[in-house]
Each structure stands twice: as C-alpha cells, then as structure tokens.
C-alpha cells in the first residue's frame, strides 16, 4: 500500500482518526499530506442522513453538479476534501467486537485523534489510560470544544459558538456594533493547526524517549491564544479594543472600497506618509487629497469617513484587479476581496500550483486547496483521492490485522462494519 506513495516526512507514521466535522479532520489531512497513513474510522450512524434529495443537494451545493447520486455519502465534496490521502474503515465502537478491533489497531499505530465530547471515549472503554496500557508509544490527542475537564467540559460546541466565546468574534464587527462571527467557522481549522503542531511535538519527543503521551486540546482556548496580544493589551492599557470595521488605528485610508461590478471590493491599506504620497500620485493628485487636514496620519484618522468617501469615489468605476496592480506597483498594500471563483482562479496561487486536483471514483474531478506547508526535500503530496465509506476494510482489517475474508464478511453480517450509513436512533 505505501509503496505507491512518495517519501514524506511522516512516512511510516500510522494515525487512527476518530475525528469528525472539521477541526480534527483538518489536522489529519495535513498529517496525510505529509505522508502519514491516516485511517479514518467512523461509526455509520455518524456518517450523515440516509437520504439526500436533489432539492437538499441544491441548497447545500456540496455534491458534484448538485447530484447526490446513489451513494451521496461518497459524493459529498466536504468529506472528500477532508478525506484526501486518507484510508477509510467503518467500525461500530459501541459493540464489543468493534472495540476489540480498535484496540488491535492501536497496538500497531502511532497516533489516535478524536474530537468527541469528553464523556464518549471513557464510556466506550477506549480512553487514553486504556489505550496507553495496550501501546505505551501511542500519542493520543483529545480535542473537545472546551477540553476534557472543567465546568464547561460537557458544553456542546461548534466553531461557530467557540468564535464568540473565545473572544475571537469580538475582534470583528462593523464600527460600534456587536461582535461578528466568522463567516467560515474559523476556530475549526485554527484548532486543527494547534493539534497538528502538538502531535508533531509529541512525535519528536517520542523519537527521544520512546514514550507516547496524552494531548488535551481545548478548541475554545485556541481562539483566546490567537487574540493573546489583545487580552494582554487590555491589561496593560485598560482599554477593551473597540470594533472598527475595516479601519486601522495606525493606517488611513484602510478599508474595503466598492469597485466595478456587482459586489466587487478592493482592500486598500495606506500606512506611512511615503505611502500616502505614493497613493496621491496613483490617484492623479486630485484636489481633495491636497487638503491640509489629510496631510498627516492623525488628520486622516480624524476625518476617516471623509477620506473613505473620496477613496470610494475613485475606486467605484474601476476594475478591482487594475486598482490592486497599480497600487502594488507604487508599493501600497492592496488586494481584491476575492470570492470563491476568483480565489480558485487567482493567477498567483495557480502559478505556485497551490490547488490540487483529484479524480474521485464517485465524485469525479474536484479541485481542493493544497498544502501550505512547502518542504524542499520531503514535500507534501497528493497521492490518493478521498476513500469511499469502508473502502479499506480489506487492507486494514485483512492485511494489517490478518482477518480472513470470511471473518470480514462476518463483521459485515453482524453490522460491525458496512458500506452505507445507518439511521440514527434518537
């Protein structure tokens, strides 16, 4: 199986991935891109609903050509993005045989990662003390929303609720208004990034000590770590940072200005006095820009609304890309506020071959974000499209655990493994 893979930095590292949704899968996607053998393990009640109608598919927009197909769970592009380079098996962990198989896999693996609520793994009898007794080298990363201890440990959470709780959302918002949620559940991938670093740190330590360890990650704390300069700044200055839209306390003009076309915007950031002078040249030194009140940063900040209005008048009928190029040529930070289409067709990202294309047996050709970790000697690679549900039962249960074809059939008969989602009973 691994012979078809190029040599990655994590070659030979085996990961049992019990994680779901985004934070955990984002982490294991990186590990897989870097060469680890990631075995995604799911209970079939958690895979998703049994039926997806064409109407629902159209609303979600995440099935190729809005067509859910006969096996929609294999065509969902969200799963297929997160699942690239990974292997997949199903295992019902609320059964004795399911748990026994998982424990046998733990014996021959390096990492276990899960983001269940903290009561689940102990209840299933597969928490860290149990698994480390089976394999003391195992690195076990647990990443529930609020961490596995404390008064809110059982809180049900998502990236969307952790965003405001952690203080992150307080750093986004229109001037004077309430905190604004990320439109993108940002705390999910951000937490996945911390988990990735923590796991690699534990691998590095294990190379020296021969011992695994337990990583307890609280997604809620990720958001607070990523605003640590603001919480410390509050303590030093006594000022709670206000919401200022796209404004900036040391730059002006600084904002997203309308440009030619529907819902097209150009972000412009003018910092130093030299940049302001260059900016005036680019916009052909109109009379308003010569106004004494705007000649200093302090003046421009004081008359921010007026400055913004003038800049918007200049950008309104211009192509956002043309504005970006002319300002960047003059040494001024500016960028098109790109939508999904423009992002995927961005000339710079494509020049760097950022996007990866996969030919999935059930979803066809799909383009996904590549791997930002670029290593000169042991590069991240895309070597396998996302697995279909249960695709790797023969390799994982047969080759790795030595089960016979009859034994695997028997597991399917007993509904311990399978190839279609199960309806949730609750």
């Amino acid at each position: 199986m691994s012979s078809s893979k190029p040599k990655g930095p994590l070659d030979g590292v085996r990961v049992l991935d019990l994680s779901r949704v985004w934070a955990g899968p984002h982490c294991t996607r990186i590990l897989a891109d870097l060469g680890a053998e990631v075995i995604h393990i799911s209970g079939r009640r958690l895979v998703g609903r049994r039926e997806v109608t064409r109407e629902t598919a159209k609303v979600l927009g995440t099935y190729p050509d809005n067509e859910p197909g006969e096996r929609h769970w294999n065509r969902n592009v969200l799963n297929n993005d997160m699942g690239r380079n990974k292997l997949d098996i199903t295992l019902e962990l609320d059964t004795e045989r399911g748990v026994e198989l998982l424990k046998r896999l733990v014996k021959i693996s390096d990492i276990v990662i899960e983001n269940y609520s903290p009561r689940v793994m102990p209840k299933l009898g597969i928490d860290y003390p149990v698994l480390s007794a089976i394999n003391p080298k195992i690195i076990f990363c647990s990443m529930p929303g609020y961490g596995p201890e404390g008064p809110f440990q059982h809180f049900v959470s998502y990236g969307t609720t952790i965003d405001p709780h952690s203080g992150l959302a307080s750093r986004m918002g229109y001037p004077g208004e309430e905190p604004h949620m990320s439109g993108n559940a940002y705390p999910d991938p951000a937490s996945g990034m911390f988990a990735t670093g923590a796991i690699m740190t534990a691998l590095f330590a294990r190379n020296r000590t021969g011992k695994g360890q337990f990583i307890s990650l609280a997604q809620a704390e990720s958001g607070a770590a990523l605003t640590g300069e603001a919480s410390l700044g509050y303590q030093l200055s006594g000022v709670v940072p206000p919401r200022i839209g796209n404004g900036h306390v040391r730059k002006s003009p600084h904002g997203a200005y309308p440009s030619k076309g529907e819902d097209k915007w150009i972000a412009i950031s003018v910092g130093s006095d030299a940049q302001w002078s260059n900016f005036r040249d680019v916009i052909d030194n109109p009379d308003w820009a010569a106004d004494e009140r705007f000649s200093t940063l302090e003046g421009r900040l004081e008359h921010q609304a007026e400055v913004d209005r003038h800049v918007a008048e200049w950008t309104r009928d211009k192509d956002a890309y043309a504005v970006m190029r002319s300002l960047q040529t003059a040494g001024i930070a500016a960028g098109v506020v790109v939508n999904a289409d423009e992002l995927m067709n961005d000339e710079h990202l494509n020049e760097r071959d950022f996007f990866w294309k996969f030919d999935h047996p059930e979803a066809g050709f799909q383009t996904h974000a590549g791997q930002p970790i670029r290593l000169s000697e042991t590069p991240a690679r895309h070597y396998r499209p996302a697995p279909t549900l249960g695709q790797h039962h023969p390799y994982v249960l047969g080759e790795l655990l030595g089960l016979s074809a009859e034994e695997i059939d028997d597991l399917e008969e007993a509904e311990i493994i399978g190839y279609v989602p199960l309806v949730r009973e609750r």
Partner: protein
Amino acid sequence: MATVSKPGNGALAELTVLDLSHYVAGAYCGKLMAAFGAEVIKIEAPGVGDGARRVGPFPDGTTDPETSALYLYLNTGKKGLTLDLASDDGAAILQKLVAQADVLIENFAPSVMKSMGLDYATLNSINPRLVMASISNFGQSGPYRDYRADTMVEMALSGQMYVNGDPDREPLSSTGYQPSYQAALYAYSGIMAALLARDRDGTGQYVDISIQEAMASEHQFTLNGFTASGKIRMRSGNRYGSVHPTTILTCKAGEDGKPGLVSLGISDPTQYVLFLQLLDMSKLIDDPRFANPQMCAVNYREFDALISPWFMEHTAEEIVHALQDNRIPAAFVNEVSDVLDDPQYEFRGFWKEIYHPVAGTGRYAGLPYHLSEAPPVYERANLLGEHTDEILAGKLGYDGERLAKLREGGVI
C-alpha cells in the same frame, strides 16, 4: 509566580533556534518552540528592535519598546540578541551562529535574506542540518511575491474576507493578526515535520510558508461549494447562512454588567426540536417556514422576531446553561477582557501569570493544549539585546574587547 525556569527540559530542549522574526508570523512560531524548551535567540536590529515593540497597546498609552503588548506576548521565553544583519560583520556573525543552530525562522520580504547574503543555499552550505523556515505574505515565488499586505489584504486575497459581514454592506476583515497567526502555525508544523525528516534522513531543508496559502487552505464551504457546483458562498451576516439559529442574539442584560448577547449554534434537527420545546414553541415545527434549521435559515428574520421575547426575558447566563443542560449548543459572547474571567479557562489554567521587569505582571494566554509528558514552559519576553554578550561570549567565545568593538561599530 507561575513561571518556572526549566533549562534543559522540554520536548525541544536540544534545539537552538535563530529567530529573525519581526511583528507576528515568525515571532509566534518562535514563541511556540521556546515554550517547549528550545533555546530561541531573537535577533533584532540594534537600537531599534522588532517593529512589534512600537505597536502596543502600552501601559498608560506611553510608547516604550519594552512594554508593547504585541511584543511581550509574541516573544515569551526567548533570549535577546541585537545584530545588524545588513552589515558585513553582522551577517558574518549570523553565519557563525547558523553553524551551531538547528532552526532559523525569518519573515522578511522575500528578497531581503538574499540581499544580506543569507539565503538558504548559503546557510545550507554552512550547516546542511539546518531547517530554515521563511514566512512571507505570498511565498517565495509567483507574480505576487513582492506584493505588500497586512491582515486585511491577506483576508481579502485568501477569500476569507468576502464571506464575513452583511450581504448588503462591505465585507469585513478581522482586527488583529489572524492570517499571520495561522502562517505561524503552519510554519511550526512545517519545521517539526522537517525535524522529524532530519531524525530519519540526517539533513535539513527549506520551509516556504505563504500567509495567503495558509488562509486559503482554511475554507470548507467556500472552495468546495465552488468546485462541486459552481456555487459562490456569500456573506450571511451574523449567522451561518445554511442553518439557523446559528447566530448571535440580543437577550436580557446581566446583572454583572455583561451586555445582553448570546451565541447559538443550532444546526441539526434534534437540537432544533429540543430548542423549540425549551421555548415552549414546538408548534413552529408545523409551519413550513420553520420546519427545520435549513428552512429556518431562509426565514431567519421572522424566526428571530418570534423567539426574541423569550430571549429578552432571560440573561445570557440563564440561556447558556438552560440550553446546554438540554444538549443544545449555546455560548457566551465575550470581549477579550471577559475571557480573562471565564471559569472554564480558569479551571484549565489557561492564563499564565508572567512577570516582566519593565511591564510588570500580566496574565498571558497560554497554549490551547497540554502535553502530559512535555508541559510547556512560560517565561517573559526578552529585553532588547538582553543576552547579546552572553550569547556571543558563550557560543562564539568573543571577549569583552571584541564585544566593545562590535558595539562601537553599531553591529550589536
């Protein structure tokens, strides 16, 4: 004092890291390595130092290079060395330090290291085991390579900004440094991957991290909706678009002075039914406009108007606990100052009390994870040039006379 010095301890204790960072991306990456015991040498320009020293916020609003919150937070646990890398002597000293180092982190504009004769090819010939990480706005190649950017411009060009905000107003960036932080986390993992490869292969390598790519890889619905069906994800205001109520709602103000805001994260039908039961509004499920979270997202205005009276009768404290007791996702809406008093963060010991001789004692955000066998160490940020003599004497054997000469020449 919660800070305990453990020299020689920690998962990365054997590593020496040269941290040529300024502002956020490189600095946070170096800070993480220092937290696990690496000897991280922060190299700053003599007299001036890292630009983060001029950003603040500062105590009493008074600018002081030793009390900028941005610098203090991002450089915990580092040793301070001043070195004029643009001078021949400074570059030569750096090359000597590279010979003894494991990792070098820098986040200059892409042409800068080469202009100082310190590009990877040169440093690799001095020390083939060196892992060098460069973090830049757009990476080391491509047409935008030399473009300038800040947080907002990175949010814009990575596709993150377009989906934040109201559909009928301008898109929103966030204030702060999220793109740089994410790039720092990719750089940290890239360095660790390179060190693991070095354990196996014996040689170092070059790590190229683009801030734009870091943020462009953190989409789920945006890019996937487009590749699957050509759907362009739009801004949806202070809610999650496809399911409702995943949003921030106004509620009764608390007696503790907290504003009346609460976060809901209801996305699956089971939670939705429980939520309606709790509000005694189960009959809404029979109305096709509110039959499930997806339909509710389409008709969110009418829905919010219907549930608003209940929210105005209860405080955030009451609502969060009532909902969570029923396994319905809800959370507080906190300012960064509120999180300092949050009981969950307190319980896990997230805030670390750190003393700094100029800035005094502060409670610093820790790391969001605990490693059972390799607990992180939290120590204060370095003063500008604090360890210059110690490092040059200890590592390169420079005597007092030589140091004085370098100081006189403005090299250190």
